[in-house]
């Protein structure tokens, strides 16, 4: 005859085994931060963060539209807008990737939460 205590203990262990990966995943997801090494990485991270944090943002959104949404939500975007000018020169203007402070972009991306890090590939990242 197995005692009730053993059954309870076994159930506890089973529960822990079942829920631990779930809890771990949730915490890991929450702790994931954009880890950018340059301006392009930072904007790639921001793009992913936006897609997750603002699900009603249409797939065809542009940076200006995204910034508009953030601004409307009370997010400080001034620093990010400055960085965007340089990023666009690189992205669409064919200029070399500038060595600029991208902390403001990373800050906004991390603030949006639920990010999954950035795409690898550094300066060449992007579609």
């Amino acid at each position, binding site marked *: 005859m197995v005692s009730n205590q053993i059954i309870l203990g076994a159930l506890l262990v089973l529960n822990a085994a079942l829920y631990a990966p779930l809890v771990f995943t949730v915490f890991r997801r929450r702790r994931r931060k954009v880890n950018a090494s340059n301006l392009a990485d930072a*904007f790639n991270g921001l*793009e992913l963060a936006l897609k997750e944090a603002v699900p009603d943002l*249409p*797939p*065809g*959104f*542009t*940076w*200006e*539209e995204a910034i508009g949404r953030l601004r409307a939500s009370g997010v400080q975007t001034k620093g990010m807008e400055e960085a965007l000018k340089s990023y*666009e*020169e690189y*992205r*669409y*203007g*064919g200029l070399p990737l500038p060595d600029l402070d991208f902390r403001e972009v990373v800050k906004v991306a991390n603030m949006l939460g639920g990010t999954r890090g950035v795409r690898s590939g550094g300066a060449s990242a*992007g*579609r």
Partner: protein
Amino acid sequence: MRALAAEIRDKVIKEVGKVVIGREKEVDLLLMCLLARGHVLLEGVPGVSKTLVATAFSKCLGLQFKRVQFTPDILPLDIIGGFIFNLKSREFEFRKGPVFTNILLADEINRAPPKVQSALLESMQELQVTVEGHTEKLPFPFMVIATQNPLEFEGVYPLPEGQLDRFMVRVNFRYPSKEVESDILKRNLSGIDVNDVKTALTLGELEALVKQVDGVKVSDEVLTYLARVAEATRNEGSLVLGASPRAMVQLVHCARAKALLGGRRFVTPDDLKSIASDVLTHRLTIDQAAALKGVSRNPEAILTAIFDRVEPPR
């Protein structure tokens, strides 16, 4: 030069603003179109300052300006000119019509029969006029600013698709807001004089800016994005006619001018998206069968949905 473009834009908007209130966006589009070597169709009900904007805009450019009131009895000869027999020399000689100018205001263009409307096609597309085998080049710059009232049905000849496609931009003149209307009323108490508008740029500056537009970079990725948008308009179920290659080329040119006026040497997806409605909607034809089933919306809504679907390079 980039700073100069932005400076000139501000000057033009300020000068036109002396006689027209609350039409900054429309003036901006006119300037973009001029720099991109395009033509403009101004559409709106009577009394929303279409002709005044066109006149003030031409005045502040300091260019040669002619206005033709289109009527049902107008002839191609009245626009492009023709051969007249000179009694003194006893020879036929070519007499230039009002199209030989820098800015041609074709007022109420849809009141003229198709024969006259199509007489403008060659001028608008090839910047020249051919009459009986005789070809004459038009001066630089050449821009047609046409106006039409979309609500008139009696005694009008709607512009055919081919003619509409020649207009780089269609600018919709909507009623002003309450605040702007109040300002307009105040301004009109003391009278308005178009002669108050001063020249904002020289011909040399204009030529330089037009050349600068050609130097504005459009990346391959942005072009691919545009091609995907064009394809989406052609596959859209509620449209019979999507955007033509010419429409997309004009969108690129206009976006380049917008970028230059914004102080940039490259085009962003934002540039394209912000002017797409002005450049494309007049070229899209709604499927009437779909419209009857209640499937279709207006061209602006369809275009917005397409741009929302197609992912730009970021």
